[in-house]
């Protein structure tokens, strides 16, 4: 049986490093983070960017950890831009000085996504574990705008900041963002560990839905708001990564190619390393990228579902984390036999009155 070659990937997510000055409790990075000494070298990343352009990748997202913690970020952006790749940096902004902004601009950066932890300094710095971080972000936003670049302001929502969502949108407007992301926490890695302190109630969700709907109508055509819903409350799962091995390649700091950034939690996989294999082969034929690609792998109720090529069965990592089986229907789906586990998680979080969380920290071994 011959397998047809998949369409080329659209996007490459480069997790340059797991190092980060912030310690956000909602971080979706894995608990077992890559040590700094295991990170790919500059030359290795340059080669990955060349390969990405060759196989048809259109956009590169420099992420982390904090991508600006890598000294070679400017060089990598310049290289990607020279290869015609659309370059995006996903950053906390606390390292975005005037000098760094000027260098990135000269390198040809297309877009910067700046994360905020809250609308005000005190709660923002608490959740980020970085005193003075919020002020630095405000300065970073101004630098981005003054450089003439488009700004996306990203706000991650959870029960400890949810009542201030309206103020967050106002802050995004004030900063001149062209795009905002109001993203409910996705429960992977550190966020999953801290779920009971972060997961909102149905009432809180309804409140945010209302605020976002109103803001979208008011800002239509001026500021686009992308709203990422919390799938614990959803009837349908998210189309995780636009389908497994369908649109994206994610590369970890140490060079593992992953169909999504939480995939290393899945047992029974050997994720190919860009140190050992070509990106083209990884995409086309590695076991890791083909195992859940398309619809052939699907169990019921996905297999017969009219949304199978819309939702793509949801998220494999969530199926494992909640239902204990990476090949199961995502429990976020109301058709999943495990859907009740989501309601149980919401109830458990609702019963939890302790708002303490475990800060994200790199385990230095």
């Amino acid at each position, binding site marked *: 049986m011959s397998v047809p070659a998949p369409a080329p990937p659209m996007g490459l997510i480069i997790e340059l490093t797991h190092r980060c000055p912030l310690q956000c409790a909602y971080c979706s990075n894995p608990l077992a983070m890559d040590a700094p000494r295991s990170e790919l070298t500059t030359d290795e990343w340059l080669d990955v960017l060349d390969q990405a352009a060759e196989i048809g990748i*259109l956009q590169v997202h420099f992420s982390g950890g904090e991508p600006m913690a890598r000294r070679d970020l400017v060089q990598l952006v310049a290289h990607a831009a020279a290869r015609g790749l659309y370059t995006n940096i996903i950053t906390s902004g606390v390292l975005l000085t005037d000098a760094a902004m000027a260098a990135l601009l000269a390198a040809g950066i297309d877009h910067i996504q700046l994360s905020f932890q809250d609308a005000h300094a005190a709660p923002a710095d608490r959740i980020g574990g970085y005193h003075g971080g919020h002020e630095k972000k405000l300065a970073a936003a101004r630098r981005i705008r003054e450089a003439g670049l488009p700004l996306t302001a990203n706000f991650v929502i959870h029960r400890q900041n949810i009542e201030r969502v309206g103020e967050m949108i106002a802050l995004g407007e004030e900063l001149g963002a062209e795009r905002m992301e109001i993203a409910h926490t996705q429960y992977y890695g550190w966020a999953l560990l801290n779920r009971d302190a972060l997961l909102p109630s149905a009432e809180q969700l309804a409140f945010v839905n209302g605020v976002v709907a109103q803001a979208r109508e008011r800002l239509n055509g001026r500021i686009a708001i992308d709203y990422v819903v919390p799938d614990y409350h959803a009837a349908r799962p998210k189309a995780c990564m636009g389908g497994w091995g369908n649109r994206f390649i994610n590369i970890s700091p140490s060079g593992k190619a992953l169909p999504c950034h939480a995939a290393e939690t899945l047992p029974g996989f050997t994720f190919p390393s860009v140190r050992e294999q070509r990106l083209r082969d990884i995409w086309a034929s590695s076991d890791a990228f083909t195992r859940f690609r398309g619809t052939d792998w699907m169990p019921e109720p996905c297999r017969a579902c009219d949304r199978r090529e819309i939702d793509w069965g949801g998220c494999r990592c969530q199926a494992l984390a909640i239902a204990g089986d990476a090949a199961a229907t995502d429990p976020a789906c109301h058709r999943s036999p495990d859907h009740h586990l989501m309601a149980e998680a919401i109830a458990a979080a609702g019963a939890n009155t302790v708002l303490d969380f475990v800060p994200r920290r790199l385990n230095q071994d």
Partner: protein
Amino acid sequence: MTDGATVPAFRRGVKFRFDTVREAWVLLAPEKLFMPDEIAVEILKLVDGARSIDAIVDDLAARFDAPRDEIATDVIATLEDLSTRGALQL
């Protein structure tokens, strides 16, 4: 309100280019990507921040065999959709 005098422009950070791997035009935007259909490609090729919607419709009407009204409806619908999705400014 969008009308014939409106001048559409790509928003900051939006790039419309031909991808040689797919042999197709792509619209690249902040953390978004659009694969415009053939009609949208012809419209977007005329978006330069100077031409009005009327001028775009005139250009297309001269080259394609379709009633001007129909073309105008398509052009406005396409541009408004991409404006809502953050790729264009109207």
